[in-house]
């Protein structure tokens, strides 16, 4: 699903690489936590998977494709097979909940009939049935994140990338979001989630990848947030 081979990333005008010689593999259907302090390279790691950036050295394979060899005009097609969720939700404030989810289908040219069918379905799945016509501003943070997850999942991606999805939420709401992501993972969707939330990582007991100053320092199956000595 994802394979990094000796990947390094150096941003222009910066001496210290954001990622150094990272090699790892994520299999289909896995749930992976990506942990590390700020500036450890988590965001760069995710940006490489989304091909917002290209690796300076090494190879990044996502969904069986070598991203270095993927031409620019094929990138949108690759991204359609990925779902993305962010800390700041990234919803369109002037569109309703249903319109926000439908937007992800409209821009890739899905037919109106398909959209009418799949939007209520996915909103039910994330627990927002009946709130189709509300505006994002009227919803709580947790509900807004559910809308974002619905939008990320509506096209049934094979891989879901979540960048601190619970970063703006209280612990109780976070648990709800994690249950939802777990449920999505159980449908066969691979989930890669960057997080700072120790409780969540410790509770879920999933694979943990830790980055420190751009290096991969830990890759542990059924791991916890911090080191166990």
């Amino acid at each position: 699903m994802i394979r990094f081979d000796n990947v390094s990333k150096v941003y222009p005008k910066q001496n210290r690489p954001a990622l150094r010689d990272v090699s790892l593999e994520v299999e289909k259907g896995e749930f992976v936590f990506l942990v590390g302090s700020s500036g450890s390279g988590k965001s760069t790691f995710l940006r490489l998977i989304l091909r917002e950036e290209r690796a300076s050295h090494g190879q990044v394979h996502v969904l069986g494709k070598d991203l270095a060899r993927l031409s620019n005009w094929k990138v949108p097609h690759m991204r359609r097979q990925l779902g993305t969720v962010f800390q700041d939700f990234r919803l369109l404030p002037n569109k309703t909940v249903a319109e926000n989810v439908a937007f992800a289908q409209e821009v890739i040219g899905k037919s109106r009939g398909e959209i009418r069918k799949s939007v209520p379905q996915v909103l039910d799945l994330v627990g927002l049935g009946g709130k189709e016509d509300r505006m994002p501003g009227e919803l709580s943070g947790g509900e807004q994140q559910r809308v974002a997850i619905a939008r990320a999942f509506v096209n049934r991606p094979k891989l879901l990338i979540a960048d601190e999805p619970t970063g703006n939420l209280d612990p109780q709401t976070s648990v709800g979001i994690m249950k939802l992501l777990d449920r999505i993972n159980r449908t066969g969707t691979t989930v890669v989630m960057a997080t700072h939330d120790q409780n969540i990582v410790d509770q879920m007991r999933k694979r943990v990848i830790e980055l420190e100053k751009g290096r991969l320092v830990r890759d542990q199956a059924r791991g916890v947030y911090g080191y166990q000595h």
Partner: protein
Amino acid sequence: MRAQFVLSEIGVGLRRNLTMTFAVIVSVALSLALFGGSLLMSDQVNTMKGYWYDKVNVSVFLCNKSDAESDPNCAKGAVTEDQKKQIMADLDEMSVVEKVTYESQDEAYKHYKEQFGDSPLASSLTPDQMQESYRIKLKDPEKYQVIATAFDGRDGVQSVQDQKGILDNLFGLLNGMNWAARAIMALMLVVALMLIVNTVRVSAFSRRRETGIMRLVGASGFYIQAPFIMEAAVAGLIGGGVACAFLVAARYLIIDHGLALSEKLTLINFIGWDAVLTKLPLILATSLLMPALAAFFALRKYLKV
């Protein structure tokens, strides 16, 4: 791609940027009106030049039957075959002459019809009212006087005319106006392009949230850019429409009505509606493509896809 979705995006974009859109429309309209005006002015000059203007320097007009009755230069009657032969022979011997062409009454009638086809004067003319003439190309156009001295006042010659002398001043004026129009047009065009680039930049910035999300969910580059490009094209097309209306109104008000030059200057042949109408598709196409291209290149800089 769903047309309705794209159209609503365009509408939103144009309204959000109303002042900027208006500025684009006005500058495109002005520059293209000047562009069309300059094209029409060239047409007008060409219409007025007539058949011989670019081909010869001097014309020797010979007396015809009606000149013999009315023109003192032709008091000795219409030109005879002998006189014509003599003139031709003399012209051949002159070293300043490069080429001489004889125009018969029928040919003169034909050329006149081509130039003044629709005017009331032309319809009442008959071929034998036309003059025969020798059309002379000189090696040095300044040597017009040599021909004038040799043939003015000779039997059978009605007049000798320096072809360019009559019209050159007028054409000089029209040409000057034409260049001025082109210079202003170029300036307005630059203004229009800069406005379009800036409009696109503001538009891309104010919609960065939408385009960011579009990118994330895998919308193609074209799909993301299309609303911006079409926004510019629509504004440009409106400007082009205004320019077309302006040209049509200008011909109507200056030539047909209003100033009504065609009634006051009956001897000048003005451009017809066909000349105006054939320019309109060109103007509309330019008004559509130019802003679209400008937007396309602006987006490469200001919109990450």
